[in-house]
């Protein structure tokens, strides 16, 4: 018992140190989404002008195929970093990508796509106060959601998609979901 008391402060320190070390490696931006395994929120977003599409993005559009929903804005700096990878995904035809143009001037949003390339199948505009983004539990752009054939959200990625994240995490999930009826 005596000896145990001498070890106790060291043990307490060691346990705390483990927790703090673990805390250093965690990303505070990674907030677990509560929307996983829930249907895509009801939405009916207007199309982005100048893309030639007459319908924007609606809940029904996300049913039938496994797809990626990408939240972007022409004001979003990390989106510039992510964009070339989305273009590659589009070129390879891995999965259709839809976009929510969040809190953006539609004219700027359209000009941004014209300048950087347009990897999207459908684009819907979500003007302030970004009701659809809030329904998606979005905390910043870019954010991407994997939606299965039934229109259920299966995965959320916060921040720009890198080539590695696409190949190692997102694409395997999409392939797996495509196999399911």
């Amino acid at each position, binding site marked *: 018992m005596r000896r145990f008391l001498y070890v106790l402060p060291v043990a307490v320190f060691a346990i705390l140190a483990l927790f703090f070390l673990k805390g250093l490696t965690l990303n505070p931006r990674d907030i677990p989404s509560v929307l996983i395994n829930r249907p895509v929120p009801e939405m009916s977003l207007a199309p982005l002008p100048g893309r030639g599409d007459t319908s924007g993005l609606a809940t029904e559009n996300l049913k039938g195929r496994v797809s990626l929903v990408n939240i972007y804005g022409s004001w979003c700096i990390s989106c510039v970093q992510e964009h070339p990878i989305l273009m590659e995904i589009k070129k390879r035809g891995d999965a259709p990508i839809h976009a929510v143009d969040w809190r953006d001037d539609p004219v700027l949003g359209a000009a941004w796509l014209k300048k950087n390339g347009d990897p999207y199948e459908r684009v819907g505009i979500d003007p*302030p106060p970004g009701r659809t983004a809030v329904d998606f539990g*979005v905390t910043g752009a870019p954010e991407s959601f994997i939606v299965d054939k039934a229109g259920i959200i299966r995965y959320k990625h916060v921040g720009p998609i890198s080539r590695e994240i696409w190949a190692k995490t997102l694409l395997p999930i999409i392939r797996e979901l495509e196999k399911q009826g």
Partner: protein
Amino acid sequence: MKRLLVLLFVLATPALAVNPDEMLKDPAQEHRARELGKDLRCLVCQNQSIDDSDADLAKDLRVIVRERIAKGDSDDQVKSFVVDRYGDYVLLKPPFKATTLALWLGPLALFAGALWAVLAFYRRRPAEKAAPPPPPLSAEESRRLDKLLKETER
């Protein structure tokens, strides 16, 4: 100088991010929105409430909270609307449930442990004081003590 300081202190009210154009016309409803806004976390800055934050998302959430209040939602309904989308994380005061048990009861348990340790420490002390007095000196020891004392006196 003193007057200037007093003036500065009077003007130094907490800076709220709420813009006049966001406010509800009904003061009672606006008050409710403020109180709710203090409890909701800004998800961009994370350690500020949406009432304190200048982030766009915080502004959007303030607007949406006010919309729901104007539509007749109760405070709990507004809160569960936001929690439904962002999880319990959005509440600055975490709810009391199974997953947060350690959070709420942890400090209490630590305090109880400390209290027990302190009490145990003090309970042991009187026992030490009550130790039996040493036996009286033997005749031999008294003689040696006298001798030693006499030597030092010289």
